[in-house]
């Protein structure tokens, strides 16, 4: 890929300052997403993936705060950028889709109101033009009789439709980057499939970069170009989709893939990663995964640097399972 990547996150650190101490929700995360590329950001609850998403778009609220690192959007570092600048970017160049469609749309405002205001906030057009554009995008995401349905209120839509509306809103101003935080988790499988397909098509056609945040590997397996696996606030493995899925190198990734039911032989116990994720308030020194890792030893107490044991792959591990991967 030539040219500046749409998004380059470098050593991002976001901490939450609570009475009980500082929780390191994002602890040195780095990745890039190029034009038209789809990256899957995978991790369990509490791994810091959602906070990463919010950090990029600048919506981390107190007691959280970005304490270090850079977020280079098309080369411009937007960490600490003035609110006016961020307001211009949000909804226009960087869009975000939230997880729960029920709560993301304001229940007392009509759908068209909520869409038109997004257009008018960033472009100097008249209301009618904004309305037309909203209608077209709604039709594009597959909402039938868009003209009619626009005048409705959110509670009159089903969950799947509401999410499509949220996606439509994200697409309205043709952003360069879309951050989708578990957009299909609350939907049923068939709709999920449709949306995945359309997302892929969209990115190929318009060159929009997409970060798909999820805890479900299966979801990104169908759509992403590359994967970043997060654990306890850090990216532990990163690489091309197929490469990571076929030959995982970090013990956590291996465990994750191993615990997917499909991989299991019938009649055997489901594989589980023993132990629990550590509290973000009291992360162990060195590798956060060592307490649950079968390959751990004394070396794991050191700070884990990023290494590239295999071309095109980065990991944070002192015992990357390269041999097993072959």
């Amino acid at each position, binding site marked *: 890929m030539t040219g500046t990547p749409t998004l380059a996150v470098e050593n991002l650190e976001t901490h939450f300052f609570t009475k009980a101490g500082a929780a390191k929700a994002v602890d040195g995360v780095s990745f890039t997403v190029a034009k038209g590329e789809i990256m899957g950001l995978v991790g369990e609850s509490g791994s810091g993936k959602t906070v990463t998403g919010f950090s990029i778009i600048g919506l981390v609220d107190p007691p959280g705060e970005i304490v270090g690192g850079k977020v280079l959007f098309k080369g411009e570092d937007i960490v600490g950028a003035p609110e006016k600048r961020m307001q211009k970017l949000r909804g226009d160049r960087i869009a975000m889709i939230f997880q729960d469609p029920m709560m993301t749309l304001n*229940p007392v405002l009509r759908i068209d109101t909520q869409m038109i205001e997004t257009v008018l*906030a960033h472009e100097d057009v008249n209301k009618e033009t904004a309305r037309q554009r909203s209608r077209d995008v709604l039709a594009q995401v597959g909402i039938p009789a868009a003209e009619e349905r626009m005048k409705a209120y959110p509670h009159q839509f089903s969950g799947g439709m509401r999410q499509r509306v949220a996606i439509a809103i994200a697409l309205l101003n043709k952003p360069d980057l879309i951050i989708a935080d578990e957009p299909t988790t609350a939907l049923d499988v068939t709709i999920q499939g449709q949306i995945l397909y359309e997302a892929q098509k969209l990115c190929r056609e318009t060159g929009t970069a997409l970060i798909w945040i999820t805890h479900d590997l299966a979801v990104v397996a169908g759509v992403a170009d590359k994967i970043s696996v997060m654990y306890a606030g850090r990216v532990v493995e990163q690489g091309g989709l197929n490469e990571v899925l076929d030959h995982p190198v970090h013990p956590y990734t291996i465990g994750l893939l191993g615990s997917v039911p499909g991989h299991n032989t019938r009649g055997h116990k489901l594989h589980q990663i023993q132990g629990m994720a550590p509290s973000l308030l009291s992360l162990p020194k060195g590798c956060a995964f060592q307490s649950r890792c079968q390959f751990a030893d004394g070396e794991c107490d050191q700070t884990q640097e990023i290494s590239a044991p295999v071309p095109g792959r980065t990991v944070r591990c002192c015992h990357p399972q390269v041999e097993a991967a072959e």
Partner: protein
Amino acid sequence: MSVFIIRRLMQSILVVWIMSLIVFVGVNIVGDPVDMLINPEADQAEIERFIRDLGLDRPLHEQYWFFVLNALKGDLGNSFIFNEPALKLIIQRIPATFELAISALLMAVVIGIPLGVYAGLKPDTRTSKTIMATSILGFSLPTFWVGLMMIMVFAVMLGWLPSFGRGETELLLGIEFSFLTMDGLAHLLLPAINLSLFKMSLVIRLARAGTREVVHQDYIKFARAKGISQNRIIFVHLMKNILIPVVTVLGLEFGGLIAFSVVTETVFSWPGMGKLIIDALHNLDRPVVVAYLMIIVLIFVVINLVVDVLYSILDPRVRLQDLKG
């Protein structure tokens, strides 16, 4: 929507009917009807004539029937003191009370909501803490005492504003209003502020609580993610959501304002319904008391109805639910 309204109408009529029963029972059974309805200074012959005229020697259900019939005709007896139809006396005073109550309501809303929203958006600033502290004072201070102090300071010591009565009025649509004259406004100011204090504190607390709850909702964050301006988020997204609970409470509280004007009117000698009934209670002018009660019930029932309709207009979820069901 009409099914909803009809249902509420039926309920309202039921309440009014029950109230008439209670009032009737109160006057005729608990107390001595002769004492209550007949001027205590009448002599024996007059008393007997009254008893026959008023049908007090008839069986109870007949009496009640007459009561209802007369009430529907608008005849609720004559005042002992003024010797005029009680109903007419009360209706004459309604504009004064309403003017006071509406002024108080407007003040409470216009001042209370912005203060409350501000306190909700920036809860840790000095201003917010002051606002909240003042609001506690607002609903702890007994209204009548505040009224007295206001008279003390503004009328007696400073001499800025008059301390009693209604001042000059002007006719608008055949009804006399105070706010149309400067003098009238001067007379209206203190009592209206006094009456509004309690409600204002309530509104401030409600608005603040509502704001704090709404501000953390996902849809507000989503609006920010769309790049919507701060102003629009506050005035459109936030406001519409907190207005619903605020309006509901306010609507119901308006009835309370009318009732509570009894106190303010007494302190400031404002010639409204409230002063009338306090005087009537002291003078044992029972027909006026009865008439007042019936009117008040009617007013309340109408207010509740209006609030329900307003609520269904403001909250689309309620409105559309009724369409289906």
